[in-house]
């Protein structure tokens, strides 16, 4: 593997919109998936001779299946509103990372094959044939989109580049061009049950270790159960929570919250993954197959509720799609939404005064909060719009004395992606990940300087992994990113309510 060879962008005194530099990121391409992994997902392993025909047919099929794709390919007026909104453009200055230009890579081909103007006046409307060069451009730039939907907030027609990049990836998969990282991970979920490929014995071992650690720390027997039939709650959490800092500290926190709530809960080894990379590659079928594992686990374990741990796109799939993909969930307790987010659960306990929280447990930290893109712009928590912003902040404020928001144009619905979402969290895309983190790093730096912030909390496994990796490039340390439930864990007073 070629060693990363690029310069980390400079953090300026205040953010500026850069001038464009054509082609500076054209070399960025993730590794392609091997034929055997493509087969697991139902995709061909080698580029067929008639690949153009297959790709165009696939595009036609998707146009008939997704209203978003049809309407968005037609509706763009090139007003430029989105051009300065993508973190990858701001970090790389490559104009093809402007949302409209990224969409145009597909739109040009759509126009050529599916519209009157593109068929008869291609030059006039910028329509092009689907060639190998175009396909290469697709592979490069549709893997520089984290599907964070920031552009969709600002588009006057709500055009969502995530929809376009998902369609592009699905078309590429249909002609064998798959991305190694995403597609191998989906294969692992089908075979083992989670993205990291952790088998049941490894999970059991980890959870047992956690029980011992918590006992040692607090003197209390907090349980971290696996595959326990008859438990009330099934917890579905990203497999990173079993594996690495700061994720695992969040998992410890969930366990403590359940302990204090006095409810029985369990993890599942069969559905030991909240993430659903089927969304990243735009494949309804694969996304559904991953989601159905959760339904099967819930039925098998006989639980009454499903709660999701801290994860961004997983919460999007859970909140927005799970009922569609794997519903109806009429076998669960109808008094609770299906599914619930762990933050909703914890917030509810705080509201009811059921948790004793000692804020001084976090006095060694001064915090800010990173709204994860898929939670912020593609889901909700609680029963009011915007609950996805208020509930995590309310939890942090209940657990910490020092909380400061980053600048308003970088949080809530305007939040910047961490730079590693959408299936880009792989070392072969390190350059685009580091550069894409620039806007968030700028915002973080401003609260560090203004309020002496020491830590940034997040509720997404991808954000946490990404920040651990890229923060050192910008002069921060990797342990400055924390889980929200890590803060709960450090503030919660176990035992009887005082």
């Amino acid at each position, binding site marked *: 593997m070629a060693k990363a060879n690029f310069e980390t962008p400079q953090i300026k005194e205040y953010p500026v*919109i850069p*001038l*464009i530099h*054509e082609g500076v990121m054209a070399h960025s391409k993730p590794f392609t998936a091997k034929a055997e992994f493509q087969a697991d997902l139902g995709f061909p392993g080698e580029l067929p001779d008639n690949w153009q025909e297959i790709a165009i047919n696939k595009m036609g099929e998707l*146009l008939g*299946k*997704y*209203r*978003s794709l*049809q*309407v*968005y390919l*037609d*509706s763009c*007026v*090139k*007003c*430029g*509103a*989105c*051009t300065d909104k993508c973190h990858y453009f701001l970090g790389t200055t490559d*104009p093809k990372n*402007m949302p*409209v230009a990224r969409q*145009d890579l597909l739109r040009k081909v759509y126009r050529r094959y599916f*519209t009157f*103007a593109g068929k008869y*006046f291609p030059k*006039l*409307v*910028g329509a092009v044939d689907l060639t190998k060069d175009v396909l290469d451009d697709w592979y490069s730039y549709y893997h520089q989109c984290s599907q964070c939907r920031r552009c*969709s*907030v*600002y*588009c*006057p*027609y*709500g*055009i*969502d580049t995530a*929809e376009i990049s998902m369609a592009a990836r699905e078309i590429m998969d249909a002609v064998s061009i798959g991305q190694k990282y995403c597609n191998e991970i989906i294969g692992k979920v089908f075979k083992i049950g989670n993205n990291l490929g952790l088998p049941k014995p490894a999970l059991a071992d980890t959870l047992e270790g956690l029980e011992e650690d918590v006992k040692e720390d607090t003197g209390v027997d907090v349980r971290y159960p696996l595959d326990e039939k008859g438990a009330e709650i099934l917890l579905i959490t990203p497999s990173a929570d079993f594996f690495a800092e700061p994720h695992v500290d969040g998992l410890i926190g969930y366990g403590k919250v359940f302990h204090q709530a006095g409810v029985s809960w369990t993890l599942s080894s069969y559905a030991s993954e909240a993430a659903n990379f089927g969304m990243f590659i735009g494949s*309804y079928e694969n996304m559904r197959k991953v989601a159905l594992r959760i339904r099967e686990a819930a039925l098998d374990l006989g639980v009454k509720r499903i709660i999701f741990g801290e994860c961004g796109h997983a919460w999007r799939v859970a*909140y*927005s*799609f799970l*009922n*569609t993909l794997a*519903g109806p969930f009429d076998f669960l307790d109808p008094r609770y*939404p299906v*599914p619930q987010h762990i933050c909703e659960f914890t917030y509810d306990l705080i509201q009811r005064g059921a948790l004793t929280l000692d804020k001084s447990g976090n006095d060694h930290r001064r915090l800010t909060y990173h709204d994860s893109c898929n939670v*912020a*712009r*593609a889901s*909700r928590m609680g*029963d*009011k*719009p915007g609950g*996805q*912003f208020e509930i995590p902040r309310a939890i942090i404020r209940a657990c910490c004395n020092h909380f400061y928001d980053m600048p308003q144009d970088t949080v809530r*619905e305007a939040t910047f992606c961490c730079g590693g979402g959408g299936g880009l969290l792989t070392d072969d895309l390190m350059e685009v990940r580091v550069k894409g983190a620039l806007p968030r790093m700028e915002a973080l730096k401003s609260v560090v300087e203004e309020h002496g912030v020491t830590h940034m909390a997040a509720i997404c496994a991808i954000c946490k992994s990404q920040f651990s990796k890229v923060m050192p490039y910008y002069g921060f340390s990797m342990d400055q990113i924390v889980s929200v439930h890590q803060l709960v864990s450090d503030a919660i007073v176990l035992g009887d309510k005082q």
Partner: protein
Amino acid sequence: MSVITIVYTVLMYTATLILVGGLAYRINKYARTPAPLKIPTTPAPTTTSGVVMRMGREVVFFQSLFKSSKWTWLFGWIFHFSLLLELLRHLRYVLNPLPTWVVLIQPFGKYAAFGMIFGLAGLWARRVFVDRVRYISAPSDHLMLALLIAIALSGLTMTYVVHTDIISLKEFILGLIYFDWQPLPPDPALLIHLGLVAALMIVFPISKLLHAPGVFFSPTRNQVDNPRERRHLAPWAAQLETNERS
């Protein structure tokens, strides 16, 4: 009947047929294509009336564009609002007898063409001077602006420079509506104006002007945020499930 009248009579019918037929085809396509997943850009309304309000703010005030770029919003909104005023003002050539409100807006509509030109010029300037917008502009994007400006200029010419016989013009238009064809005054400014408007009507359903119906079908804007409460299932996705069970 003069050749000019025959040509313009045919042109106006053709343009109208293409506009109406083309838009009906497109809208039908949008309406029939399913949206298999709930993808509203959140925070999103949780009720249908909330969605109507959101769409209203989007269509009337260009809410998202306002969040995005104040200059583009300013130029874009002034242009669209002026265009609307102009369209309403032009109802005086179509309606007989005239409703009072059409009479009342005439003095305002008269100046709206300046608003159109101001807005369009601003939008064009962005296309030329902002490097990002220049990069994404195709020849058709420039042509569209030129077409609209030419329509406004030719209209202004008739209001302020060389008046046309608007009584005969109205008879021509009403003749088209009632299939009782009347001669068109052969004034150059009018012929240019009508010809350009016909061109705009013809390109409407095959160009980016489809953003007008498109916005109403945008799932990120028109969906209710209630996926946990109601199961949302597209017909083809339901079929997928049925096939599995059988």
